[in-house]
């Protein structure tokens, strides 16, 4: 169904619905909004809340971060981390701004390891 890279949330939702054969009103019911709301999202006439994007990602079994990115939204959980660490996180992000994708992946592994150790 997907031709090339999908660049809008509207197209991504349409493609995933087609792929999984979920009806427009059916998807609305799965995420507790009207079919008209989904229709408007797919026409790019309205923007979803982060909470709705989470529900859409779950219903369509897709990556929530990709949907949030397409919706120009930041995961509220990530916003919380920044707000709870108002100095450390911005400083960390500034120092990491030139990292390569591979270095980001390596860094994430390290952070996950540290998180696991701190929970022991």
């Amino acid at each position: 169904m997907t031709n090339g890279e999908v660049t809008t949330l509207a197209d991504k939702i349409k493609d995933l619905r087609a792929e999984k054969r979920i009806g427009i009103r059916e998807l609305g019911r799965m995420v507790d909004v009207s079919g008209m709301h989904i229709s408007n999202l797919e026409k790019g006439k309205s923007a979803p809340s982060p909470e709705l994007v989470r529900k859409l990602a779950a219903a369509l079994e897709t990556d929530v971060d990709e949907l949030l990115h397409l919706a120009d939204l930041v995961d509220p959980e990530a916003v919380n981390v920044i707000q709870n660490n108002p100095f450390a996180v911005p400083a960390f992000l500034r120092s990491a701004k030139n990292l390569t994708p591979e270095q980001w992946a390596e860094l994430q592994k390290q952070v996950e390891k540290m998180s696991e150790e701190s929970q022991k």
Partner: protein
Amino acid sequence: MARSYRHPNMTSNAFSIEFPELSDDHIEASARQLLSDFSEFSGSSVSTPISVESIAEHFLGYEIEISDEGLFADPDYLGGIIFASNVIQVNASVESNEGRYNFTIAHEIGHHVLHRQIYLEASAENASNILCRDTNDKPLIEQQADRFAAALLMPQQAVSEAVSAIPRPSKLKTPRAVRGYAATVTKVGSMGNVSNTAMVNRLIDLGYLSEASYQRGTSHDFSRRARPSFRGTLWRLLTRYRRRLK
């Protein structure tokens, strides 16, 4: 015999198209064929309740738009189809009404199956116009699309099997009794996505109910309320009543 139909488009360049009359058998067969094709597409047998949303979107490739804007600010316009851009529009006002929502989409699918080819051939320059389903007007092609919608949502075989599976009440003389019987057929036949009125009409169309008995009962309701002075007035009232219920 062909009849001329001036469709209720919103633009000033309305035009007339000759649509042929179609027999009920032809329309029934067209609905059966679509279900058969959809079954092949799905890779499994299709059973009731029929997902007309899936047929429209995933099999026929239509985009369904649910809207309350423009033409659809008027709740009398239930739906429409734009052949040129493969769009089926549904009035948001019917979205929460299970029967009306499904019947509206099935009706537009009926236009696709029965009228699209003729429409596009006759109106190459006007293909962006919309055929609309409204609550008040029933020209020939609207009646045909209604019959198709009924045949699609309530397949003859499914209705027949449900009717055979339940004991038929000895008396079906009042609208209430008729509606109760239709509700049982709907439940037994797993056709919960249609309205009770649609099932009553389907049972009449398929000959399982006598139209006369239903009308007699309904007329009685009206005669008590409206006291029509002559039969013609009564018939018009009855027709309007049935349309409102649809």
